[in-house]
């Protein structure tokens, strides 16, 4: 692979970190973090300033449908605004990570409000103790109704949540028995929502009548809780849900399972999750590194991620561009390159809808197993969507982010027309330290050479630069992160 950035390894490494812990970085983000050095940049991720996203009252005023209805594109757009405008993209990447694992969907829940509340919970607890996160998850109304825990009664258990917390959320197949599932389910009896009968029937009837959706509120019903003795993962006691979560969290299988997810999401594409019981992790040393950090830091997810980001495994050349961008990563990164949104616009629906067309409907995962990722993101249809969206987004040189790139090219070349090869070097760097293969680069340089002179200080030159950016975001390499 040919590097096309001017600044060498350090900037490339910072860009690698920011792509994985966020989205395609802007030049300002790159410069800001590069000034801190790599360790300082990692530290900034865990100690960011305010997110300062588009304010929720602004979204609500101009899109009254986005926080209170059941329509996935509307609620997904609230999150799309947040991801494309936040100053703390790592927070959103964490929310995406947990959304993919604790996959919950408004396809069943009908209302988007409770899904957005769950995403906010991921922001708040996603980097903290896994124990705290699992408790929040188990008390999250969207999760309770998604996996039917409102039907998990003292005298008639429903195993759905008890099974999935073990199989999909915390430990993985092969680390518990069917009896453990039953005992786990018993521990979560009585974990329900307020007004459960009415809220449940309205969800099943798929109706906003009579007065729109009433957002759900967690409630513990002691009368419906099985307080009897249980034996779970070899321990016996009158366990409730929190006790079961304690036992789950101290089991070594748990951090190993979460670490593999982290690796899959932040380091390199892993095998699909259903194959994990039969195939070991690609990089056992990386998994062990994170398991050790988990136990040394009170089950901290943030400590696992920090250990990974600071490791030579993560920094290595072979891990760069080793994952296929998820649709959300591709769309948000491209939107941020073009300058994001200053104010609500109908354009947001195009972005959210495109994410769905590419295979990742936000807040509406395909199943409880979430999205597999990796090669699954790519198909003939999704590639067309990817290229069309990215190309359309950066093709307008009047967009704030594109104009900034053009202006920076002009600052570097005050003399007039820019040499095509130098121009490509600049654009790849300014657009986020993007790498392309040498043959790809040659093709784009050829195109630039055919444009008849490109002066970035003219409108014609700015338009030509935007057209070159369109080619860059249409490359195979831009699909990788």
């Amino acid at each position: 692979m040919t590097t096309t950035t001017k600044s060498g390894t350090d900037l490339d490494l910072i860009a690698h970190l920011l792509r994985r812990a966020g989205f395609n970085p802007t030049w300002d983000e790159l410069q800001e973090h590069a000034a801190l050095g790599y360790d300082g940049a990692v530290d900034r991720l865990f100690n960011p300033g305010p997110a300062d996203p588009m304010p929720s009252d602004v979204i609500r005023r101009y899109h009254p449908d986005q926080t209170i209805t059941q329509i996935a594109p509307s609620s997904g757009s609230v999150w799309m605004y947040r991801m494309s405008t936040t100053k703390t993209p790592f927070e959103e990447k964490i929310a995406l990570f947990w959304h993919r694992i604790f996959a919950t969907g408004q396809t069943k829940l009908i209302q988007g409000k409770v899904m957005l509340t769950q995403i906010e919970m991921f922001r708040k607890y996603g980097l903290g103790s896994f124990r705290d996160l699992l408790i929040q998850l188990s008390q999250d109304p969207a999760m309770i109704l998604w996996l039917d825990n409102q039907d998990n009664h003292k005298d008639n258990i429903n195993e759905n949540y008890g099974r999935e917390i073990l199989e999909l959320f915390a430990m993985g197949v092969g680390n518990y028995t069917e009896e453990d599932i039953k005992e786990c389910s018993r521990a979560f009896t009585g974990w329900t929502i307020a007004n459960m009968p009415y809220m449940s029937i309205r969800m099943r009837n798929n109706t906003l009548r009579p007065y729109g959706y009433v957002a759900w509120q967690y409630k513990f019903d002691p009368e419906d809780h099985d307080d009897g003795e249980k034996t779970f993962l070899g321990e016996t006691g009158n366990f409730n849900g929190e006790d079961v979560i304690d036992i789950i969290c101290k089991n070594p299988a748990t951090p190993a399972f979460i670490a593999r997810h982290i690796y899959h999401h932040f380091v390199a594409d892993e095998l699909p999750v259903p194959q994990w019981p039969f195939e070991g992790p690609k990089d056992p040393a990386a998994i062990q590194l994170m398991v050790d950090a988990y136990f040394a830091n009170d089950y901290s997810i943030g400590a696992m991620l920090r250990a990974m980001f600071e490791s030579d495994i993560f920094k290595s050349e072979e891990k760069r561009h080793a994952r296929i961008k998820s649709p959300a990563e591709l769309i948000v990164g491209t939107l941020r390159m073009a300058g994001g949104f200053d104010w609500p616009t109908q354009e947001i629906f195009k972005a959210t809808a495109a994410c769905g067309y590419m295979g990742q409907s936000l807040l509406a995962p395909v199943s409880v197993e979430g999205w597999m990722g990796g090669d699954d993101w790519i198909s003939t249809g999704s590639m067309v969507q990817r290229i069309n969206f990215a190309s359309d987004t950066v093709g307008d040189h009047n967009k704030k982010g594109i104009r900034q790139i053009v202006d920076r090219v002009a600052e570097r070349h005050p003399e007039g027309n820019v040499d095509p090869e130098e121009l490509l070097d600049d654009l790849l760097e300014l657009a986020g330290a993007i790498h392309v293969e040498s043959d790809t680069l040659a093709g784009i340089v050829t195109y630039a050479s055919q444009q008849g002179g490109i002066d970035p200080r003219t409108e014609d030159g700015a338009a030509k630069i935007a057209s070159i950016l369109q080619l860059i975001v249409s490359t195979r390499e831009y699909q990788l992160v």
Partner: protein
Amino acid sequence: MTTKTGTSLELEYRDTNGFGAAQGGRGYYLPVDLAVRSDGRIYVLSRGDAVQGGNGIKITDIEHNWYDVISGRGRSPGEFISATAIVFDANDRIFMADEELNRITIFDADHSYVTHWGTQGSGDGEFDGPSGLAFDRDGNLLVVDDKNHRIQRYTPEGGYISSIGSHGSGDGEFNFPWGVTVAPDGNIYVADWRNDRIQRFTHDGEFIDAHGTTGLGENQFHRPSNTAVDTDGNIFVADWANQRVQVFDKSWNFQTSIRGAGELSVWAAEYIDANADEKEARSSFDPYPELDVEDPHEVSARTEPYFWDPVSLALFDDTRLLVLETGRHRFQVWEKV
């Protein structure tokens, strides 16, 4: 200094009119404004969303009679994309604003489309996101020019006359204003949305005063969206993000604040009666569950009787206040006592 004085004005809950009608028909879906015609019929601007139906100007009355739907989603003449406000002129013609299409649409008293006008921009006679409408005492139309942070005055046919205000937080300046009201005495009240205050102007546009600071207390607002003023000069403020209505006398002395007390409307009760499973489940429904959130918007999201995004107000016979809620697809009726 404003304080609560001797003979306070109070409001008592009387009724609820509405029904979530995302699929169309009787009821509303994401309503954003309402207006009372001279004959007492109530017109509710049901904005809807980009996917489902249920949009249009819905017509009812104080007795829950259901009449008609006019307009609907679209870009053709007489339709709207993001409608924000409606108002009647002295001849019962309907004027409707659309912040996406940047146009004012006129329907005659028989609901037939007449014309539309408006040009997007920031110059005189142009606007960017019309969000509020009111007729002044001369019969000219005040248009809240939201993204240009000003109020413009037009003839009903769209002829530009004058402008009030500019961007800022000083006297007579605005920060994304929303609703506008002309009081019986001719004064102009503007919900200065992002400055968390109400500003008052003379008929001629001279600044009189401003009231409110940011907060949750009395005399404080969070993103007020609209006002109503009765013949005594009492001022009712839709304190939108605080999810309440605050009431003041004409000197801004605080009178009372209401949070909402919605019950099943006639239409809602008919629906519940017709659906046995929901009726049985609702029999144990506690409308005021114990909550673990404090943010007013979140509290309203979980408490059905409370106002949820109370966006617009209208007075009926000068005795009853109609409070329109976008989030609950209804308006509540409160009476002055």
